[in-house]
């Protein structure tokens, strides 16, 4: 869910930047503000632009820094498309002065998978914990046989999630359950 929002925001930002660039080029071509943007019958990169870059020694180093930052951000953006990193452990002790107890995430996810596997209504359930140790999120994938009992599936999912929240001692574990053909 979060990568969906990030992608949409960044696509909107890039799209808007392209629209602004297009608007600037058109404004130059139509001489909308010749005193500020330059006249239409002059080169797009005119003498004043070249003089600005030449007279300000910081111009090209700043351009280089911007290019590096953009490249790194884009690499981060592309890497973020990979599946969300699974959480390794859950912190069960909110008061760290008493020490910390960390439960391996696989203990929880395997328990969820085993719980969901009970009965014939769900096939090959798979659970994944994401988010942070303090604010975990659960993703569940499971297959449905053609003659699954929807009421039994719903009850099984609800019971499993209730037990899971009891195990992590929190009521707030946002969960997404995706059923399909597996």
């Amino acid at each position, binding site marked *: 869910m979060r990568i*969906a929002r990030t*992608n*949409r*925001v*960044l*696509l*909107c930002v*890039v*799209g*808007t930047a*392209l*629209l602004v*660039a*297009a*608007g600037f*080029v*058109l404004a*130059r*071509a139509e*001489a909308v503000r010749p005193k500020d943007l330059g*006249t*239409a*019958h*002059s*080169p*797009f990169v*005119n003498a004043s632009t*070249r003089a600005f870059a030449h007279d300000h020694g910081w111009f*090209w*180093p700043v*351009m*280089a820094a911007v290019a*590096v930052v*953009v*490249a790194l951000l*884009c*690499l981060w*953006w*592309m890497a973020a*498309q990979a599946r969300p990193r699974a959480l390794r452990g859950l912190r069960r002790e909110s008061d760290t002065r008493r020490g910390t107890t960390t439960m391996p995430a696989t203990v929880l996810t395997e328990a969820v998978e085993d719980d969901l596997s009970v009965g014939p209504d769900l096939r090959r359930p798979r659970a994944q914990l994401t988010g942070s140790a303090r604010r975990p999120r659960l993703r569940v994938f499971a*297959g*449905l046989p*053609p003659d699954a*009992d*929807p009421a039994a599936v*719903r009850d099984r*999912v*609800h019971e499993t*999630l209730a037990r899971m929240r009891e195990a992590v001692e929190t*009521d*707030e*574990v*946002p*969960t*997404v*359950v*995706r*059923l*399909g*053909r597996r």
Partner: protein
Amino acid sequence: MTIELHAVPTAEPTPPLPVDRSLRRATARAFRPRRVVPALVVGAVLAVGATLAAIEIISRLAHHRVAVLPVGWLAHFGTTTDADNVRFLVIAGVLAALGLILVALAFWPGRRRVVGLATSDRDAVVGITYAGMSRQLARAAETVDGIARAKVAIGRRRVAVHAASPLRDVTGLKDQVRSAVSGRLAEFAPLRDRKIYVAVRRRED
């Protein structure tokens, strides 16, 4: 062989479900397309362009130029082509088109492939893929006596059932299929009503 189709829209949609708007919105957000492909394409193009620009600028500042971009051609083009040249208008048009496409991708929800299901758990959203729901409803249609096989297509607001029967007389079958599919759909408690359209193909000699 003639094919007789009995396409009958239901008189009533599936019964309304006691779901609130917040659950429907949360489910839609959880299962909406992530726009991974556009993100990868745009990210890759920008990463490559920015990297090449950084290499070009840094190498020039270090007086050890690595020619990765046609800087000479770009400089000549920019300094000798008037701003009102048709080429710049084409460039503006291309930039605007790309910008509109990306903004549209950002705001358009996208094609849904998951049917949101009602749940009493306030911290969970549940959905079943269109393929999974199609199989469930097709199996329900096939439980009707006289139906050999069925295919189901799920849409955002409709369910289309195409059933085949080995019988010559299919009187009453479409209603039975509609009832079976409607009942099965109601068991899943989808968040959004869907009209059910049934077509039964009968055997013709």
